[in-house]
């Protein structure tokens, strides 16, 4: 098909998908999906992990080309060949995986995204313009910061800023609020919604949160296993009806209730712990904390306040500049031997980056904790591959990791399934004594969230000491026994979920 360069739209436009089918080999990711987003509306696309939502929008963005079906822009069939091409139409997307260049500053990343970036950049002029733009922006990020130094939440904000900066008229948001605090999420979506109301923007929002569907969206489309499972006007639908469409009538799992139990002895202690950011600036500033057996201690905070560095120190990914970590009253240096001895397990954020080797198979990744010990070794030095495979298959079934086989590279799995695989590795053996977890439910659908929350609660009921770092306040209030608020690398507030005052927590999170 011959595509003349499309005229850039200054107004939102209708977008329609008609019977779009996308296959990967024999796997049908999207099966005759149709949906329409009229100009100036807020449309939600919901479905479980692996339901084909990301694949569908990637067809719109020109990442994949659909085998069958049409994409209509203003009732005209178009073939979008690349994300760049989509951008020329005024279609922009915020991806689930970040697309910032880590070594570049926020300003450079913003400028780089512009298709009409000048061949020679006048930085003084561009920085002035960017500052001007930031004045109208819903959230503030230091333009001079390197993208690699931003925490997940800040990166997500830059991704959204980027699309606003590009002046996109049709915006696809792939779970944009999964790393934002509820207040931040409302603020971001509220601002986007205002732009939609003003007739400046159409939005297709991929989400798992019903709250967002009911709070902000006009229409909704539900996908299940690649097929249309329903949809319609949001105001005509109930949450139960949506859940039924998503799950296909299955009963939803229940989160395991917390059993009342006596607080055990101290398991994990942090004493005056300090750590720096990559740039050498202090990130964790003298933190004291004790986690007892059988309790979940939650750490709340706006991303970028030292949570990431704190978890990295406990995980052994970063050296502490001062202070010490003790586990079961012994100094703990996060070596493999110590982690095994004290049964310290980790569920890190961005598990593909922090807890997996993407090119290695799901089975091998699941075997990382135990591949060098009997029964997975032969004669103590040789790895028994078939034993690892059996071991992994059992865990894959038990934790319902959706993968083609145990030999598939883990990098090919969807986000929720990577998280499940890591969870299987860390909690599958049932021997954990200390569990440190950071944003364990980043970008997962609610069935997966419930299953992970259940696993964490069950571990606590078994007497595991759990440190839960999260940017999702709802999650913390549901799971934690004690709640600490971190701001600028220090704990500034302590409460329990029963006595929690959301306003006070928000106040402390904001650093006042």
């Amino acid at each position: 098909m011959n595509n003349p360069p499309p005229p850039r739209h200054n107004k939102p436009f209708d977008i329609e998908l008609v019977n779009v089918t996308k296959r990967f080999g024999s796997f049908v990711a999207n099966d005759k999906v149709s949906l329409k987003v009229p100009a100036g509306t807020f449309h939600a696309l919901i479905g479980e992990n692996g339901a084909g939502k990301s694949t569908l929008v990637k067809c719109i963005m020109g990442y994949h080309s659909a085998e069958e079906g049409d994409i209509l822009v203003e009732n005209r069939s178009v073939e979008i060949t690349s994300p760049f091409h989509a951008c020329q139409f005024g279609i922009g997307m915020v991806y689930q995986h970040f697309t910032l260049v880590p070594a570049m500053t926020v300003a450079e990343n913003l400028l780089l995204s512009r298709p009409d970036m000048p061949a020679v950049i006048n930085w003084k002029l561009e920085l002035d313009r960017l500052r001007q733009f930031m004045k109208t922006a819903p959230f503030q990020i230091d333009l001079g910061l390197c993208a690699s130094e931003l925490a997940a939440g800040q990166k997500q904000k830059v991704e959204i800023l980027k699309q606003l900066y590009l002046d996109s008229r049709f915006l696809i948001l792939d779970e944009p609020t999964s790393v934002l605090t509820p207040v931040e999420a409302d603020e971001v979506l509220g601002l986007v919604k205002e732009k939609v109301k003003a007739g400046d923007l159409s939005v297709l929002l991929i989400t798992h949160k019903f709250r967002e569907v009911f709070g902000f969206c006009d229409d909704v489309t539900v996908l299940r296993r690649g097929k249309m499972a329903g949809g319609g006007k949001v105001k005509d639908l109930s949450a139960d009806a949506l859940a039924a469409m998503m799950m296909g009538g299955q009963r939803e799992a229940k989160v395991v209730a917390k059993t009342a139990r006596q607080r055990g002895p101290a398991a994990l202690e942090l004493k005056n712990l300090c750590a720096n950011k990559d740039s050498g600036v202090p990130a964790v500033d003298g933190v004291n904390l004790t986690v007892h057996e059988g309790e979940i201690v939650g750490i709340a905070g706006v991303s970028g306040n030292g949570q990431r560095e704190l978890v990295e120190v406990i995980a052994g990914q970063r050296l502490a500049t001062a202070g010490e970590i003790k586990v079961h009253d012994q100094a703990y240096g996060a070596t493999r031997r110590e982690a095994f001895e004290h049964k310290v397990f980790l569920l890190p954020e961005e598990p593909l980056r922090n807890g997996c080797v993407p090119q290695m198979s799901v089975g091998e990744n699941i075997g990382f904790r135990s591949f060098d010990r009997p029964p997975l070794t032969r004669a103590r030095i040789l790895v028994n591959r078939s034993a690892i495979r059996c071991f992994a298959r059992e865990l894959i079934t038990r934790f319902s990791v959706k993968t083609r086989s145990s030999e598939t590279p883990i990098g090919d799995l969807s986000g929720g399934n990577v998280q499940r695989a890591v969870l299987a590795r860390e909690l599958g053996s049932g021997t954990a004594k200390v569990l440190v977890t950071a944003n364990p439910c980043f970008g997962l659908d609610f069935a997966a969230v419930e299953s992970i929350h259940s696993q964490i609660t069950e571990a606590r009921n078994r007497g595991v000491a759990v440190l839960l770092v999260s940017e999702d306040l709802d999650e913390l209030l549901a799971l934690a026994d004690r709640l600490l608020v971190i701001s600028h690398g220090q704990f500034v507030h302590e409460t329990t979920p029963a006595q929690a005052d959301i306003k006070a927590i928000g106040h402390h999170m904001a650093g006042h």
Partner: protein
Amino acid sequence: MSNSSIGWWGVVIGVLAGSVRGGTPFLLVSLGECLTEKSGKINLGLEGVLLMGAMSAYAVSYKTGSSLCGVAAAAGVGALLGMIHALMVSRPRVNDIAVGIAMLIFGSGLAFYLGKPYIEPSAPQLPGIPLGAWSSVAQIRAALSISPLFVFGVVVAFLMHWFFRSTRWGMHVRAVGDSPAAARAMGLSVGRTRFLAIVCGSALGGMGGAHLSLFYPGAWTERISSGQGLMAVALVIFARWNPVHCLWASLLFGGAQSIGPALQAVGISTGYYLWNASPYILTLLVMMATCSTKRTLVGAPGALGTSS
């Protein structure tokens, strides 16, 4: 002794002159490697490119009688070798280090084979820029006769620094080298960007070779490079992928290289070979002093040495 007129100053002048003279090939090759690595690929074959550049510059200069044609030929041959490297590494699952080593051996072997007839004859040399014409002292005049390729390299170093920061293409190269996935999401062609970066980088490496055979030491022999192409690759790490730092590092290495000869010139030949090892010792010391377990290498392109 004619040296007596300036005495120990001779050593200082010798080292300074050596840092410019001997640093030029380091400079051009490291700038070429810097550009290549910024795009996320490593080209270890630049040692081969350096030798091919030296040989072809000398041969063409001899045949045409124009040293400028020689430099152009060196750049062209460098670009051609770069093209082979770029085409090979653009294939999936091809390791750039392995290809680089193959190209290193291929380039040097080809240079020795084709260069045999040019070991004897003498070719027109590049004229020096006589910055020392004001002086009556021979050493100063000799020391301040600067290679035009050094001037070119200095200009390229600052230009490249500006290129990476303030031009669209430069930002594209950095994006491709740091996060190919993000670059693809922006609709950039990772393959084409890398191809061009490798070819241009390789052309710079070839010009480094032209300096060797047409200025200093100014003749074509098989031992002309003695691993300078490989050291220049290490130098890029030392310079933290910053073109301007490449300039200072090259001067430092060139200077270190000329301590031995400069001392010998004033009659001190004790430890001549030890002094000649000083660039290597220097590399080790600097690496030890600047490395840190707490920080990752600032400036290292994220995708460097990965198969993405």
